[in-house]
């Protein structure tokens, strides 16, 4: 089936099988930031933003995304540099093996658009759907909080 999607600002036309997931379609076409792990919507490693909302791409059919705007972790960076959440994850040592990080970063970046001043508790609730087997969650949560305070600082400049 032919579908048209816009990924990170680039229009793509793909031929996909009816049962193919959005995750598989993205990875087959070079967008490998979203990771294939649980394939059951448990772990969040495949999180991408579809039409403004972060979702698990492993439980979305590719054909369901026909006509959609998609942002993957590769698309968070702008001409000004890395996304503040990416900067903060790096600066705060929130990355160990890194496999779950694209999903965490996409999830946090999307959540902050809706709640720009989250509490630690808010972030921990959001990360319930993002599983990490190395560092745990302390550093990633600290990183998201730091990204918010950095954004506030930047606005004051």
């Amino acid at each position, binding site marked *: 089936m032919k579908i048209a999607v816009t990924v990170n600002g680039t229009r793509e036309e793909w031929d996909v099988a009816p049962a193919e997931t959005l995750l598989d379609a993205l990875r087959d076409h070079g967008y490998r930031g979203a990771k294939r792990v649980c394939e*059951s919507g448990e772990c969040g490693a495949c999180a991408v933003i579809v039409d403004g909302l*972060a979702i698990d791409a492993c439980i979305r059919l590719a054909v369901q995304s026909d006509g959609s705007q998609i942002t993957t972790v590769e698309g968070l960076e702008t001409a000004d540099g890395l996304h503040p959440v990416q900067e903060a994850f790096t600066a705060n040592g929130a990355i160990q093996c890194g496999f779950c990080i694209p999903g965490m970063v996409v999830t946090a970046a999307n959540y902050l658009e809706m709640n720009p001043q989250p509490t630690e508790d808010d972030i921990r609730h959001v990360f319930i*759907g993002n599983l990490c087997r190395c560092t745990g969650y302390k550093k990633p949560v600290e990183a998201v909080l730091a990204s918010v305070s950095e954004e506030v600082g930047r606005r004051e400049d």
Partner: protein
Amino acid sequence: MRNLREYVRPATADDAVSAKQAHGTRAAYLAGGSDLLVHRPPHLEVMIDIRHCGLNDVRSEDGHIVIGGAALLRDAEAAVTSVAAGMLADAFRDTAPWLIRNAATVSGNIANASPAADAVPALIALDAVAVLAGGDVDMAPVGEIPAGPHRTNLGDALITAIRIPTKPRRGSFVKLARSHSDIALVNLAMSFVPDGGRMRDVRVALGAVAPVAVRAGAAEAVLEGQEPTDDIIAEAARAVNDDIRPISDWRASEAYRRRMSGVLLGRAVHRARQRTETE
């Protein structure tokens, strides 16, 4: 889903129902996919995407909140914060993690017919009614839709909306699980109309303690018209044992589910009472 060969995207609920009726059990309505694309039933040949049928909104209408049949849990949660002192919003939030609430629907939580569904007891305890298209009836109480574990009475019918009366009630939703949005070992929703210090028109419903979510008539009878004293709560917690038929599985034993049902009933009444007092 190895036999999946067709994806259709109807523009109206009627077209969705026509497609379902044409293919019967070989087709399924699809929205968030958080159950269907996890279980991936091998017999499915046709997926009917109901997210483009104009069913995505949540609105207020003549004394009801009307949750569209394809409305996301996230949108429904935001729209029901004032219903029964936040009881329904709590249930929607605890249903799944944030990433899933961005995709999954309230109707899907009902139609998936998990005995442990969190939204279902909460909706039952608020007398919620499902509006149906293509069924034998046009409306059905939410509690009558599940027929057993992952079986429903829907046939080819589509849930086009869920109507929740907004009459002033108090209530609470409590859940026992490994984490907030994990699958419930037991969940319980209760609501009542406050009358001075007394509880009137009491509703108690539980999930994960029977093949489908159940109204707890025996516990309701104990609480009805009473003030929520410690003695009354203890008596209701004993009575709820007559309302449930739990099984033992790898999540919890029957005996544990029975004891926890009484504990959750006490917690729910305490929480509802605290919320009433602080308002």
